C-alpha cells in the first residue's frame, strides 16, 4: 500500500527515518450502526512527523483515540514496535510509550505547570506505593530524578516563568505548551498531537510548529498529529494520511497528497465544514 522505502533512510535535512513504530491494519470502528472508520491501514515510521488530515468529521480524532486506547476497533489489527497489540486500556497504552495531547486542552487545571508536567512521568513509577507513602529513600531519589527530567522539558519549552502557576490561570497558547510538555515528560516512543494548533493565531501557530519540529529534531521523537487545516501541517510533516468520511483517500508526501485529485475534491469540491 505504501511506497517501498528502505527500512532506514536519511531525510534531506539529516534526520533518520526508521522502520514502522506503529502499523494500523484494516481498522474499522463502529458506534452502534454508524461506521466511523472504515478499513483503514497506514503506518507511522520511527523518527518521522506523520500527519493525519481531513475535513471535520472525517474520523481523525477517532483514529487517535484508537491508537491511544480510548476506543477499541471492531475489526483490524494494531502493531506496535513489531508485535501485535492486544486490546488495551488507555493507561496501559501510555505505559507502552504513547503520549498524547487533546484538541480541547485536557490539563489538570488546579495544579501548577510543574505538577502537571510531573504527572507526565506517571508511566515511570518504580518505587512502591508503600515507600512513597512513607517518603523513603528510593522514592525521594526518584522524585529528584523525575524533577530533573521535567526541568529539561520546562527549559525546552521556555516556560520557566510559569513553573509554579496553576495552569487554569494561563492563557490558551501557554496551556497548549504545558500540555505538550506533559506529553514530552513521558519520553514517549510515539507522540500523538490532536489539533495542536487549533484556536491559535498565526504567531502562536508558528511557535507551535517550531516546537514540534524541535521535539522531533532534538529528541528524535516520532510524532503523529491530526489537523483539519492543511496549511501549516503540510510544511512540517514528512508524510500525510488524508481521511474523509471515515475512509482513507490519500497517503504520501505532502506534495503527492496536494496533487491527489480525490484530496482536492474532499477539500475544495465538497464542503463539509
Amino acid at each position: 500500500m505504501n511506497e517501498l522505502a528502505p527500512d532506514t533512510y536519511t531525510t534531506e535535512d539529516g534526520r533518520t527515518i526508521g522502520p514502522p513504530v506503529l502499523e494500523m491494519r484494516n481498522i474499522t470502528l463502529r458506534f452502534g450502526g454508524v461506521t466511523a472508520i472504515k478499513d483503514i491501514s497506514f503506518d507511522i515510521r520511527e523518527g518521522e512527523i506523520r500527519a493525519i488530515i481531513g475535513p471535520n468529521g472525517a474520523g481523525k480524532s477517532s483514529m487517535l483515540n484508537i491508537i491511544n486506547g480510548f476506543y477499541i476497533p471492531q475489526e483490524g489489527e494494531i502493531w506496535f514496535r513489531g508485535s501485535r497489540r492486544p486490546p488495551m486500556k488507555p493507561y496501559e497504552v501510555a505505559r507502552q510509550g504513547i503520549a498524547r495531547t487533546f484538541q480541547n486542552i485536557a490539563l489538570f487545571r488546579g495544579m501548577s505547570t510543574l505538577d502537571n508536567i510531573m504527572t507526565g512521568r506517571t508511566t515511570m513509577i518504580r518505587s512502591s506505593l508503600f515507600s512513597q507513602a512513607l517518603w523513603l529513600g528510593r522514592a525521594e531519589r526518584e522524585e529528584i530524578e523525575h524533577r530533573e527530567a521535567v526541568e529539561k522539558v520546562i527549559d525546552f519549552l521556555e516556560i520557566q516563568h510559569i513553573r509554579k502557576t496553576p495552569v487554569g490561570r494561563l492563557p490558551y497558547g501557554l496551556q497548549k505548551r504545558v500540555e505538550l510538555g506533559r506529553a514530552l515528560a513521558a519520553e514517549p516512543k510515539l507522540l500523538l498531537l490532536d489539533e495542536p494548533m487549533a484556536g491559535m493565531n498565526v504567531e502562536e501557530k508558528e511557535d507551535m510548529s517550531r516546537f514540534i519540529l524541535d521535539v522531533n529534531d532534538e529528541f528524535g521523537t516520532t510524532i503523529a498529529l491530526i489537523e483539519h487545516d492543511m496549511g501549516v501541517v503540510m510544511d512540517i510533516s514528512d508524510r500525510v494520511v488524508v481521511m474523509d468520511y471515515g475512509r482513507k483517500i490519500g497517503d504520501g508526501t505532502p506534495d503527492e497528497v496536494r496533487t491527489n485529485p480525490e484530496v482536492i475534491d474532499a477539500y475544495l469540491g465538497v464542503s463539509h465544514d
Partner: protein
Amino acid sequence: MYKLKEGTIKATRAIRDVWEDLPLATAATSSEELMSIPALLARNARHHGQRTAYREKEYGIWQSWTWAEVEAEVRAMALGLVVLGAKPGDHIAIIGRNRPALYWSFVAAQMVGAVPVPLYQDAVAEEMAYVLDHCGARFVIAEDQEQVDKVLDVQDRVLSIDHIAYHDPRGMRKYDHSHMNRLSDVKAEGRAAEQRLGPELDARIAALGYDDTCVMLYTSGTTGRPKGVVLSNRNIIETSKNTSDFDGLNVGDEVLAYLPMAWVGDFIFSIGQAYWTGFCVNCPENADTMQDDLREISPSYFFAPPRYFEGLLTQISIRMEDAGWLKRWMYQRAMSHARRVGPRLMDGAAVGLVDRLAYALGDFFVYGPVRNRAGMMNVRVGYTAGEAIGPEIFEFYRALGINLKQLYGQTEAAVFITQQPDGEVRADTVGVPSPGVEVRIADSGEVFYRSPGVFQEYYKNPDSTAGTKDAEGWVATGDAGFFEEATGHLRIIDRAKDVGKTASGSLFAPKYVENKLKFFPNILEAVVFGAGRETCTAFINIDLTAVGNWAERNNVAYGSYQELAAHPEVMAMVQDHVEETNRTLAEDTMLAACQIHRFLILHKELDADDGELTRTRKVRRRIIEEKYADLIAALYDGTSTVTTETEVTYEDGRKGSIRATLEVRDAAIVPVAGAKLAAE
C-alpha cells in the same frame, strides 16, 4: 527535597554573612598591579577563591561558580580565542542576555588583548549590522540560535567576521560549522592548548596597561547613528573603586544582573564593581522569570530604571485593589503612616517613639511582606537613574524602608556624574558629584563634567569626540541643570537642546512637563510640543495595564488599545491629569508657559520598533514630529477631531497600518498668579 535545595542559598548566605562580612578588599591589594579586569580576576581568585562569584538559575536550580572556577573558565575561553587566532586590538562582539558564560567572554576577550563590544540583544538586524561593521568585529560570541541567525543574516554585509561561537547549542546542529562552533568547544580547545599557548596568554595579560581599552559600548543616541564609546581600564577601575567606596559595597554583596549587557550601567555594576569588590553576580533563568529570581536572590545592591519601579508599584496597587477589605484597609493605613515616617527614619532624622513602634508594627505586617514580594528584602543600596522618577513612586519605596537613591550618569562618564549620599536623598535632585568628579554649569545652563571615568573617544569618529570633550577633558552632557544653593545637589531640567523658547520667549522644557505627566500611573508616555509656538500641546499614550485594569473593574469593554484610548471616560481621566499638571506648572513662574493648552490621546503606543522611541525608551522627538505632522497641525488649528493613518511594525517585522479618528481636547489653563511675587 528539591525544595530544600532552592531554600539553602538563603540559609547559607545568612550564616556566611555572620562571619564573613569582611570590609573592603582594598588594603591587601593596593600594592598589586590592578591595571585590568583580568588582573582583578586573578586577585579575586587568590583572595576569594572559594567565594561564589556567579550564580545562574538553570533547570530550576541555582548553579554557582566560585572565583577560582571562574578564573579557570575565563582562562580556557581566552586560550580558545587565541587558538582561533584572536589578536590584540581585535574587536569581539558579544550578544545575548545576562549569562555567566557571556560575562566571562568579556574578560576572556580582554585577556587576549581584544576589545569586547556588547550588543543589545533586541537590536534588529539593521542596527546590528551597523555596529558589527563599524567596530570591525572579527569574532562574535552569541547566546543562542536566535542571535546567531541575526548575525548570519547580516554577514554578507559585515565582511570582518571570521568566526562565531554560541553558548546554547539548541537547534544549532544543522548549521554550517566551518566558521562557527560552540563556546564550550572553544573552551575545551583552549584547555587542551594550555601547554602550547599558556605562556603567550600570560604575556598578553601582563601587557595590559591602565590606559588600554577595557570595553567599547555603543550608545543608542536619541538621534543619528550609534556611537562607540571607548572606555579604558583606568576609566572603569577608578570609577568602580570610587563608587564602591561611596556606598560601602563589599565582597558580601549580591546583585541580580538583568539589565542589557550592552548598557554601560550593567558593565559597571556586573563587571567593574563586581570585580573590584568581588561581590556575587546572579543571572536570572530568563527574562520572564526575573521577578521570581529577584525574590529568591534578594540582592543587597539593586539597580533599576524608573520604569521598573513604576511598573512594580502599579502591580502592587492592582494586587491591593483586588485584595479583601481587611488587607486593603491594613495596607492603606500602614502606607499612610510609612509615607510620613519611613523616609525620615531612613534619613536618620528624629522620630518619636510611638511613630517608631507603629512603623515596626507596619513593618511586620505590611512593609516586610511587600519588600519580600518585590525581592527587595535585603536591598542596602538601591539606585534608579536614566530618567526622572515620580516623587510619589520614589517616596513609596523609601517609605517601605528600601534605600532607593538617584544617580545621574552617562556612558561617556563610565556612568557616574552625581549620586545621592545616604541620608541626603530626595526625589527632585540627582545628588552631589560622585567622588573624583568635577561638575560645572555653563552659562547656557548645560552641565559639564570632568572625571577619571571620562571616555577616551568615540571610535572612528574624531569629530563627535571633539564636539563633546574639550582639550581640558570637560565633557558636555547635553543636559540643562543647576545646583541647588542650599544643598549643593544637582537638579536636571531637560536636554539642553530641548530646552527652548516659546514664540513669546518663555522657557520651554518639554521633558520636564512630559515627566510630570508620566508620573500619573494612567499615562505611559507623553510628547509635548511648543518650541517657537504660542502655546504648548501634547500627545498622550495611556498605560494599558493601569487603564485596562480600571476598565475591567468598571466593566468597560474594549477590544484594543485604540478602542480603550478613545473611550470618553478615559479621555476625561487624562484631561484631569493634564489639568492637574497645569496647576503644578503654574506654581513655578519660570515654567508656567509650558502649560498644556490642547492634547490628544494617540491611537497607538509609541514603539521602538517603529523608531519612535530609542531602545532605552526615550522619545525620538524629531521622528515623531515628522510622522505625526497631521496630528500636530490639528493640535494647533483648533479642530476637534482628526483622521489619520499610521504605519506600524509588528513584532515579527511585518508592516501594517492603523486608521483612526482622534478627538482633540482643550485643557484648562491656570493664569499665572502675578500677585504671588508681591506677596513673598
